[in-house]
């Protein structure tokens, strides 16, 4: 009854966007699209949004495609989001991983923050590990033993994440005082992340629906609050790729409000205090 009828041009652009980055633009969000693509309307010289959509859908221009994807992707911006993964890392995962580093079973631990946005998630991982190692008195463990890869579809967002500078507002979203004072320097209204922590994260631009993933396998993957934006088809494809990128016994964190209905095919669900995580089965 409410919601209007989508124009054929909107349906075209909806399919185009889904095909390029897996994102499903629901009709209830259709009203947001024009404001996001306004700058493209300006640059293209098209006389209407309908003309712009037609132009986009028939283009081979990779820069235009990148601009469209960049304009429609949504970026979550929170430090230590959901609280639960962090104490799971500190109290369950890290002790076990540190033991493996110490006994030579492993020489490095690899962590991937998929869709890292402006960097809060991978930097939270780096700070969490740093603080935990310090608390454990693990001076024998080199920080370089933990490799953190952070990827996002947008190169502009990656550029901002790499800079590691945060404004007064974003610094206050989820960051506890002791982390803030320990890992950030305040210069006027800019909060600059400690260089050591910045160095621990490697940022790369990557589109999750791309079939080739050149970065190997990981011990821990964060793939949070991303699936809610994907269409059903791409949810499954991306999840399969995430699973393939996880080492046997590796751990997957998804968003606390997200459902992972058919996890039992490849994962066991484990619970620690109020938190849930998924461990990839050793034998599949």
């Amino acid at each position: 009854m409410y919601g209007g009828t989508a124009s054929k041009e909107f349906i075209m652009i909806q399919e185009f966007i889904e095909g390029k980055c897996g994102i499903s633009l629901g009709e209830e969000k259709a009203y947001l699209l024009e404001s996001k693509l306004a700058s493209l309307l300006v640059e293209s010289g098209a006389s209407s949004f309908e003309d712009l959509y037609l132009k986009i859908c028939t283009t081979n221009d990779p820069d235009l495609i990148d601009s469209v994807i960049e304009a429609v992707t949504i970026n979550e911006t929170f430090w230590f989001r959901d609280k639960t993964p962090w104490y799971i890392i500190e109290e369950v995962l890290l002790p076990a991983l540190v033991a493996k580093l110490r006994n030579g079973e492993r020489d490095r631990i690899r962590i991937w923050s998929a869709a890292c946005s402006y960097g809060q998630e991978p930097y939270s991982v780096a700070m969490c590990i740093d603080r935990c190692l310090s608390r454990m008195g693990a001076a024998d463990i080199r920080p370089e033993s933990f490799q953190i890869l952070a990827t996002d579809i947008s190169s502009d967002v990656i550029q901002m994440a790499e800079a590691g500078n945060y404004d007064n507002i974003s610094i206050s979203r989820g960051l506890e005082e002791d982390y803030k004072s320990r890992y950030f320097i305040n210069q006027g209204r800019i909060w600059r992340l400690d260089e050591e922590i910045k160095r621990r994260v490697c940022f790369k631009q990557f589109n999750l629906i791309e079939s080739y993933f050149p970065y190997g396998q990981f011990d821990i993957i964060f793939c949070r609050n991303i699936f809610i934006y994907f269409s059903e088809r791409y949810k499954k494809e991306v999840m399969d790729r995430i699973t393939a990128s996880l080492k046997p016994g590796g751990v997957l964190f998804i968003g606390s409000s997200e459902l992972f209905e058919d996890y039992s095919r490849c994962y066991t669900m484990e619970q620690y205090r109020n938190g849930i995580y998924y461990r990839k089965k050793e034998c599949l």
Partner: protein
Amino acid sequence: MNNTNQGKQQHIEESDEAFSNWFFSNSIKEIIFTMTGMEVLEEKVSVETIKDLKQEISGVIVLIGNKRIMLSLSMSTYSARSLVASMTGLKPESLTQEDLVDGVAELANIAAGKVKAKLSSNGEHYDILLPYSITGDNHSIIHKNKIAVLIRLYHTENIAVMAKVCLL
């Protein structure tokens, strides 16, 4: 006593559940999350849930089109201070009354903008008038058309915002 309670219950009855769900669906929650970072729970309101709700600052805005819609966001000074502090990254104690009033009015403005855009995608054009604020301990916004009032409560452990929509 029963009659009085029944009478009060009617004030909060929503006339059109489909419209109200469509109208509210995640709009105000999303706005609060985007602008303040706070993840609020949305709750339909009953006499019980709002009996202790302090209303000290309200942001109000009117939309005019096929219908005439008044939207208000009401809250305590404490809630306003928390929300505006989170919006701006400033310390709560550094905010003036003017900041709170401005911030609450702006939240109502943004909510109206979202509603206007949704109605527009439904083919209905609306104009929005400029927002304004009402301040005063325990004030109420009482609509003559009691049946057409839609109310939701948005809250965390610490803050609460009551959103009211009235078709004038």
